[in-house]
């Protein structure tokens, strides 16, 4: 099946099995390797991308779901001014340990800061609750997002 969609602000088209996971399309067909597979069942959020501006776990999204839609990955967000600001905040607070979950956290945090951005710990915790990190204990991630909300 041939699908057309907007990937990181560029129109693209690809011929794939309609059930192919968006995660695999990104990694295999477009070599966008920031998006990671960890649990493969939508629990951990390591594969989070924005689909029409909303965070989704790309392991649960199939090719048919993205036809005509807009997808933003961590690579695309890293080019945005707000993405760059977030990267600085994560770096400054040492929020990154192994880094495997991080592109997912990056996407979800970007979405929170962009659409809400209130400096509220409770709201940030809730916004990030679909992303699992095993290394950091989350505290430094909260600090980073707080910092980004302050600076944006």
């Amino acid at each position, binding site marked *: 099946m041939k699908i057309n969609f907007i990937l990181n602000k560029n129109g693209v088209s690809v011929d794939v099995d309609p059930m192919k996971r968006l995660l695999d399309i990104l990694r295999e067909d477009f070599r*966008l*390797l*920031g*998006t*990671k*597979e*960890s*649990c*493969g*069942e939508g*629990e*951990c959020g*390591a594969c989070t991308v924005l689909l029409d501006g909303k965070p989704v776990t790309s392991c649960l999204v199939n090719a048919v779901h993205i036809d005509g839609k807009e997808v933003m*990955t*961590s*690579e695309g967000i*890293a080019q945005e001014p707000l993405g760059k600001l977030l*990267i600085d905040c*994560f*770096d*400054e*607070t*040492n*929020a*990154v*340990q*192994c*880094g*495997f*979950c*991080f*592109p997912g956290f*990056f996407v979800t945090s970007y979405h929170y800061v962009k659409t809400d951005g209130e400096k509220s710990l409770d709201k*940030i*915790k*809730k916004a*990030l*609750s*679909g*992303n*699992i*990190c*095993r*290394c*950091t*204990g*989350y*505290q*430094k*991630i*909260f600090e980073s997002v707080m910092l980004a909300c302050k600076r944006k």
Partner: protein
Amino acid sequence: MKYITKFDAIPKLNGSWQFLDVYSYEGMIPGQLLYSICHHGIIKKIHFPDGYDLSEFTMVSAKDIPGKNIVPEPECDQPYMADKEVFHFGQVIMGIAHPNRKLLREFISNTSIEYEELPAITDIKECLDNEKNAFGRELTIDHRTGKNPDPNWVHHHGIYYTPHQEQAYLEPQGMIAVWKLAEREMFVRANAQCPFFVKEGVEAIMGDSINEAIIETSEGIGGAFGGKEDFPSLLAGITSLLSYKSGKPVKIVLDRSDDIQITTKRHPARIEINSWTNPETKKIMKIDIDYRLDAGAYQTLSPIVLARGVLHAISGYSIPDAFIRGRLFRSNTPSNGAFRGFGAPQAFAAMEAHIDDIAANLKINSYNFRKINLFKIGDEFPTTQPIIENNLSDCLERVIEKANYLNKLEEFKEWNKTHKDKKGIGISIGYHGGGYTGNGEKVLNSEVKVVIEKDAIVKIFVANTDMGQGAHTTLAQMFFEAIDHPCEKCRIQLPNTSKTPNSGPTVASRTIYIIGNLLRKFALKIKDELGFENLEEYVKSHQNEFPREFRMNFVQDPSVVFDDENYVGVAYKDYSWAACVTEIYFHADTYQIELTKSWNVMDIGKVVNQKIATGQAEGGILQGLAYGLCEFFYKPGYGRMHGFTDYALPTTMDLPDVDVEFIHTDSMVAKGLGEIPMDFPAPSIRNAFYNATGIFINEYPMIPERILSHIQKNKD
């Protein structure tokens, strides 16, 4: 204590840091493991599905192994692949590779194996309650006086159970093997903590069919926590054999379901404690600890987990008459292995709970009871190792003060009188011996290397891996700060067994403690040898001397003398110390424990990089809290829990506000940090729950189902 930004932070954030799955080699094909779903049985027949051309597949089983079918471990008893009999669910029977990954998956999921089933033990209690299941060498620490307990002493007894715990590194296990026929060399790209262990693993299975195995880690290692210590040897062995047989590079990346079901986990424990206290002085006079670990189907590295367990079993108390007996028990579950803490979290989960049980019996608050019994300078461990500092006591005093513990005790008591829900506060303490136990570091004889280039770039060569803990940044910082050379001049060689000397495995909180302190000394030695004040200027004016290579070995302090037979002597040169206070809110309608605040004070000696150290501590504390609160396996290996959907990992919503403070940071020595945060938090939850409700629960984790059934049982 300044902060240097981690070298790898930006590439990890923008996604360009290379994890194993990204690496590609010409002609590479995917592989997968075919494993047993039978707990114990004889393999009768393997039925491959119809409709596939078997000649397209590369298959390896026990009979294809040119070397030995035994994984090198402290106890060599586990085969790479089962031959005739399987001893646990998840035991690998074959490695299979095919160019089409989708087709390979289908083929393996449609392959069925016929077994003659044999009796199996899969339940933790069934395994650990029955003495008949004990196997392997028994360890005892005998510090008995030979006297009977005084009849006036009060006797206390408790049996405590701890569960399996999954490391749950976010990046699943994976391995790439590239057979180079011309050189007869097996190159392995490893997602592993200990490249030299992987090298032994590949060379053992391949035997004389290869000249050498060369292991290089992937750039990124997506978490490990001990889980990538010994399983990678098995995985690398089978991947190598597939590459050897197919003549092509082979990559195996486990999916989460396979990873969670067949790889190593934290050992479940049953710890029975008998103790006697003097009711007048409130001193513990005598203790007898029976420490049992469920090793799984094979011993593998369990004997050294057991060793650390018995050495930490008594927690931080001075008890004149002590006997600790440690044993491994066999079950038909995957072999348990390394996980941050390595036997110590189990020990503290039991002993710190027992301390609160005694305090409750004696009607004294748990802080005062700890204070009376805590060991101090002049006391000794049951191994006769002298206590030379009161830093554990300092941690306890500081955390009590910070948490406002004594006032909260009163406040919660009052609040609870008028509320159905309950508030509670609990203490626990812990410590962790840094580096390998006893004579281990002497045997390891770790070596490090640096090369100073013509442009004053210093390249560091160590085999220790950075799996997210920030080891490479901190190691470099220790070397560079010692000689005041700018960190931008640092390069770190990716661990590679043919390039980096064997500086030992990345385990046992030894990377900064052993290798970091060694690099600091090494830097000073080089400075002394060359006689420079400023390295950059020296290199500029002595260009013909560079590039130049330097090497140095670790020398163990002569005070570390340990009798491995009798468990007497100095088990660890330096200990890290910690104390914790946790506050909980118990929801009486849902039986749910909500963690509201966690205070933690730790002495890890010199803090090299404040932000990295705090990040390590916070991450470890969350794993420790989750160990007490929610993580466990319901019948491991039944295929019942096979992902993050059913294995309950803590999310951002489950976490209390965690406060961490390091004390005694003016020390010259950076001590172990990796494991100590994991050791002590779990029992503080259990003790806080007792404080809130007056109910003792001796099984971890403290899940609502367990609390409910405990309350119902007591009603009946």
